[in-house]
């Protein structure tokens, strides 16, 4: 299970262990953490919610896209759901490749794709309120009902 949604704290080393391979010359690990200040506003904690079955499928899709682009790559991603406090780990992405440049590039690709196509949402809780992020600003719209090719970064 290289692609998971976790209700409990993520063990970073266990994600890294999944991509260890004899062919690898590099493993990059991205650890996404909960930031206290966003645009000057203080977050108390976050709630992450996922459409879990689809989210796992989309994480697997990202893994496949990476293998197609960077042959010889192994990928593992775990994303946390539930209540997270400041500094808690929200996501861990581990990528191993034969050469280091690809490990960095492929890892960056994974996090950017997560932010485009994986059905996970965060709700920020502040001292004076709360809001689901990524929606009410309505800066993103999908007139055809699904992401356009350009939205998918292909």
């Amino acid at each position, binding site marked *: 299970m290289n692609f998971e949604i976790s209700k409990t704290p993520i063990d970073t080393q266990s994600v890294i262990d999944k991509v260890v391979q004899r062919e690898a010359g590099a493993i990059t690990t991205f650890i*996404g953490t909960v930031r206290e200040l966003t645009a000057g506003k203080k977050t108390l904690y976050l709630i*992450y*919610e*996922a*459409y879990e*079955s*689809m*989210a796992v*499928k989309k994480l697997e899709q990202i893994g496949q896209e990476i293998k197609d682009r960077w042959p010889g790559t192994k990928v593992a991603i775990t*994303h946390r759901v539930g209540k997270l406090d400041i500094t808690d780990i*929200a*996501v861990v992405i581990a990528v191993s490749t034969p050469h280091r440049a690809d490990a960095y590039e492929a890892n960056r690709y994974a*996090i950017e794709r*997560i*932010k*485009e*196509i*994986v*059905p*996970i*949402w*965060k*709700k920020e809780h502040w001292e004076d309120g709360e809001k*689901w*992020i*990524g*929606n*009410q600003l*309505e800066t*993103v*719209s*999908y*007139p*055809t*009902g*699904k*992401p356009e090719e350009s939205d998918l970064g292909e």
Partner: protein
Amino acid sequence: MFFAHLRDAVGEESVTLELSGKTVGDAKELLSKQYRLNLDTAMAAVNEEFAGNEDVLKDGDVLAFIPPVSGG
């Protein structure tokens, strides 16, 4: 199925409707009126795969509305 602010607005995680033969776009229009939702900013998924407004629904399909995502 509804998620994030859409679920809060509807007050339910999911509802069961007779939409066989209708398109995703039809379903959006119907639910927008029924629950006073703005679904223009939501993507749609049928059976866990992104779907377009023109896609036709059949009996037993699971239609989910996916607000712009904010994972990572």
